[in-house]
């Protein structure tokens, strides 16, 4: 551990504290979790949409069925298909093509690294660690005070000097460790700046793809629901089907308006703002708060849109 001159440590005691960013870093981590959830629930609901679409197709055509051979053995991969499909047909690709599955597996690895990084910046800015450290030093000081009190007869003042020496040494070491944490935070966010942009651009494209695929299935379902509507229907049936379609439009518009690429880009913007704030808190703190708020709103809106399950078909029993 490098021992810095006392006066530098004192000067940096307030200006270079990593704990000044604890709340903001925690907010950034929370929004990263939202973005990560958006990917996971997006894939999950896309599977649900595909399964629902396949089921509707079977109901419409009522073919004879085959059971997938994989159902007879334990799952060899998380994405093998065990279900029914039309005789002389093909099993539905609930989990997408081989390329899509590759993309999904790689994206989950990227998310894991991203979330670990968010946890890392939370770790170096966690003020509770310093609180626990200070408490430990205080307890050590008290324990030393108690044991050296007995030596006061032979060495007057020992019971006071020794604990104060512990307190001072503890403060010096603690402040040096705080400085190390701040330096590590600064190194870390600078090193991560370009990588975060790369990850944001990539995840944004992945989220666009998931959203696009979900929108297409929901839009087709709306189209199939709307096509037979017309004068032959009773008013009650027409009204009911229109209400069903409106519910699906709400989900479709939620997906259309959530802008996945912008949500992912806002993560990169928030991280840039964090870098600038760590470099110059006085000048850049306001921008950091604004960027974090934007990221939080966009990530939540995207997650909520992708997390909404689409109920395909008519709102009748058996569909």
């Amino acid at each position, binding site marked *: 551990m490098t021992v810095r001159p006392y006066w530098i440590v004192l000067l940096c005691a307030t200006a270079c504290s990593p704990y000044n960013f604890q709340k903001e870093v925690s907010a950034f981590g929370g929004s990263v979790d939202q973005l990560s959830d958006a990917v996971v629930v997006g894939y999950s609901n896309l599977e649900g949409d595909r399964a629902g679409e396949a089921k509707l197709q079977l109901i419409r055509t009522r073919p004879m069925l085959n059971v997938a051979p994989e159902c007879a053995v334990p799952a060899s991969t998380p994405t093998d298909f065990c279900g029914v499909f039309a005789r002389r047909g093909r099993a539905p690709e609930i989990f997408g093509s081989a390329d*899509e599955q590759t993309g999904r597996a790689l994206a989950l690895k990227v998310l894991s690294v991203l979330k670990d990084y968010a946890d890392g910046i939370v*770790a170096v800015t966690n003020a509770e660690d310093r609180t626990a450290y200070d408490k*430990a030093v205080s307890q050590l000081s008290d324990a030393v005070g108690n044991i050296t009190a007995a030596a006061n007869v032979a060495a007057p003042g020992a019971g006071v000097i020794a604990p104060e020496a512990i307190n001072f040494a503890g403060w010096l070491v603690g402040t040096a*460790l705080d400085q190390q944490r701040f330096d590590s935070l600064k190194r870390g966010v600078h090193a991560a700046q*370009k990588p975060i942009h790369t990850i944001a*651009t990539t995840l944004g494209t992945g989220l666009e793809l998931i959203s696009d695929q979900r929108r297409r299935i929901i839009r087709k379902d709306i189209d199939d629901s709307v096509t037979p509507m017309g004068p032959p229907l009773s008013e009650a049936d027409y009204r009911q089907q229109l209400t069903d379609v409106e519910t699906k439009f709400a989900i479709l518009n939620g997906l259309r308006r959530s802008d996945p690429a912008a949500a992912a880009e806002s993560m990169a913007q928030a991280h840039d703002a964090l870098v600038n704030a760590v470099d110059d808190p006085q000048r850049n703190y306001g921008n950091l708060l604004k960027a974090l708020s934007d990221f939080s709103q966009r990530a939540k809106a995207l997650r909520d849109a992708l997390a909404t399950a689409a109920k395909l078909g008519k709102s009748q029993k058996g569909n």
Partner: protein
Amino acid sequence: MATLDDIMAQKKAAIAMLDSEIVDGLTKKNAALDDGQDEQADQLDHRVQGLMDQRQAVLLQAYLGALQSNEMADALNALKAATDDMNAVAQKMKTLTGFINNAADLISAAGEVTKALKAHTA
């Protein structure tokens, strides 16, 4: 190998063009339905489905290209290194806190033993 910026620029241009053709195709489909031209509407719908297939293919290709790029590999390595550094530094204070707590406990226990011995020999 194309850079990430190249991949995204190509994706953006392709998507913009496809979106325009999709909306145009569906507008014409609606017009055909208005005129009772069901067969023409079906053909237009079939064409639009092909454009939507292309749209998804463009997105998937860009996505995979970005995930498998050298830039992504470098990005993940840099992020892991930064994370390891921060975790190691953060751990120092925790490790020292644990050590100090142990020392305090030991000294307190030693104090109790000293008191007991004094009381015994007094």
